[in-house]
């Protein structure tokens, strides 16, 4: 009747770790030459399946690599001739921006050769040539564009990886915080009145006060983080940490990236909720279990570690799984501090394409898929535990 110990769960965990590692490492490897922008995409895009073009706009998407584009120095050639166009730079994020060339009169359908030249304020230029066969303006802008969804799918998908990273890293830190929080919350054994009645010793009360510090810290912590909005905590941690670093005279490079500010806020907030979950889980282990361990000569720590906590973990797994699902969605709040997770990336894509509905729908689909995926594993885990418990 022995179960194979969670081989599938292990594989899943490794897959998650792998995805996270790829998401962290790949952008880091793509270290480009500082100061030279890199053109990443154009519109009208010959690689897309789209065949219509408005005829009055050309977009050039690029990675700045630290450079600043001078819009007035940028040039657009159509069929070898310089096009009289107004150029504007629109920053989507630190990592990506778009130069928008516009002119008043629409060009008709037909075959065009484009050449775009981007120039930085430092005088560096990069250019891209491409051709596009336009069938005309098409039937106007649709509310939902599958083309936009298709074009920006991978851009948004990378946001989904950041979301999973945020969730997994935060739930791990939150659980660690919650474990100590719960032990702190449970460290209060008796009231001062009871202690005085029992021992009538000032020395004992003094030592008891020292021993009560973990309880006070844990109580303050859960009260504070459950009593204030998560969004506020995220913003405060993001804005206040650099000020602290400045105040203590440390260099700016110690400023945590927005990602880690977000992880800190999510971990602290969910840690506070999970503290109560863990406390309830530990209390749900029958008192007789500790008594049996004490009677065998085990000390308090051995009893907690070997007897109580393993059983408490089993009890709290469903509740932690629940919070995990909730956390997937709450990570969207860190989009306000510029972390490019799922929601923010879909907003950026929406802004770049003037079609936010399409990109937001992609984000919604990702969130939904993630929650369904993790709910499935949670249900599987719970069924397994149910079976373990029912083994009679």
């Amino acid at each position: 009747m022995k179960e194979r110990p969670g081989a599938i769960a292990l594989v899943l965990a490794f897959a998650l770790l792998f995805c996270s590692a790829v998401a962290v490492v790949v952008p880091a490897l793509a270290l480009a030459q500082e100061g030279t922008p890199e053109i990443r995409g154009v519109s009208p895009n010959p690689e897309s399946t789209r065949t219509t073009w408005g005829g009055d706009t050309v977009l050039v998407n690029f990675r700045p690599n630290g450079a600043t584009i001078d819009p007035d120095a940028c040039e657009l050639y159509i069929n070898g001739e310089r096009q009289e166009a107004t150029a504007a730079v629109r920053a989507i994020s630190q990592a990506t921006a778009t130069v928008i060339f516009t002119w008043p009169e629409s060009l008709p359908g037909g075959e065009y050769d484009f050449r775009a030249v981007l120039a930085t304020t430092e005088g560096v230029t990069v250019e891209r040539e491409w051709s596009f066969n336009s069938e005309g303006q098409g039937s106007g802008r649709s509310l939902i564009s599958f083309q936009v969804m298709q074009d920006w799918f991978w851009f948004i998908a990378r946001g989904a990886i950041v979301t999973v990273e945020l969730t997994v890293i935060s739930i791990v830190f939150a659980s660690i915080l919650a474990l100590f929080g719960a032990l702190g919350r449970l460290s209060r054994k008796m009231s001062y009145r009871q202690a005085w009645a029992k021992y009538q010793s000032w020395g004992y009360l003094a030592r008891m006060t020292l021993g009560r510090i973990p309880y006070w810290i844990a109580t303050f912590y859960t009260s504070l983080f459950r009593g204030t909005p998560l969004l506020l905590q995220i913003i405060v941690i993001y804005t206040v940490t650099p000020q602290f670093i400045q105040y203590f005279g440390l260099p700016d490079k110690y400023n945590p990236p927005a990602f880690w500010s977000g992880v800190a806020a999510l971990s602290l907030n969910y840690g506070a909720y999970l503290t109560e979950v863990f406390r309830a889980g530990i209390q749900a282990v029958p008192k007789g279990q500790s008594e049996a361990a004490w009677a065998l000569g085990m000390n308090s720590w051995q009893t907690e570690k070997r007897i109580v906590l393993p059983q408490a973990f089993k009890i709290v797994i469903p509740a932690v799984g629940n919070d995990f699902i909730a956390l997937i969605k709450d990570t969207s709040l860190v989009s306000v501090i510029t972390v490019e997770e799922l929601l923010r990336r879909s907003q950026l894509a929406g802004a770049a394409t003037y079609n936010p509905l399409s990109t937001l729908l992609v984000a919604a689909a990702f969130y939904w898929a993630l929650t369904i995926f993790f709910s499935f594993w949670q249900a599987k885990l719970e069924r397994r535990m149910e079976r373990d418990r029912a083994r009679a």
Partner: protein
Amino acid sequence: MPVHSDMPMPDAPTPPSSSEVLVKIEALHKKFGNNHVLRGVDMEIRRGEVVVLIGPSGSGKSTLLRCINFLEEPTSGYITVGGVTVKCGSHGKTYRDAVHDVRMKCGMVFQEFNLFPHKSVTENIIEAPLIVKRQKKEAALEKARILLERVGLSDRADYFPSQISGGQKQRVAIARAMAMDPELMLFDEPTSALDPELIGEVLNVMKGLAQDGMTMIVVTHEMSFARDVADRVIFIDEGLFLEDEQPDTLFYHPQHERTRQFLRHILPGRDQERLEDETAGRELPE
């Protein structure tokens, strides 16, 4: 020798005995808030003795048992087990170390078994020897094997507690306590949570222990066990020892009306008749 006094016993010389005193309890008090559960208990138990505690519900018999290994902290008094004396109601490192030493000399068996559900039968038994006594795993496993054989559960070594019957659980619990080589075994109503047909197997194991010379304090309602195995039966009422006699004397010649009332309810039919016969016409004090 009925012992029922609120006062600590004077330093009366202990009666000469063939074997040493293993457990000595002096003027033990236990209060839960305003509820005075133990009101000055004194007792001595010699090595190898089997003592059965009986008494009505709430009389303090379980509390007394749990006080001996400090699962309940007595309010005041002295407890000595195997030469280690604890002054109850104190605190600090000396106190904690003494409590630990006492616990190491006591094995305890609970009404609700309290096996560790996340560990197999063998793991339950070797847990404390490995963790507390830091024994080698091979030695602990060998000891577990011997103990399981002794309680007749060699074929259940790799089962989990949820997979075995109540009687088997309790036998494992006894083996688990014995694995720490206790000098004293405490049984807190070990058969009260069992189906009637499973009681016998547990009592047989306990009888075996008694025959091997283990010192035992047993809280039980199994009067047949008390009559057959106990060296002394103590009747506790309202936190005091009312009678402390050999089983036959206590069961059939109780000195107090309270004892007789209690025995009337709890003795098996045949013994009840004998009790009525032997105490007929006698006026017993309350």
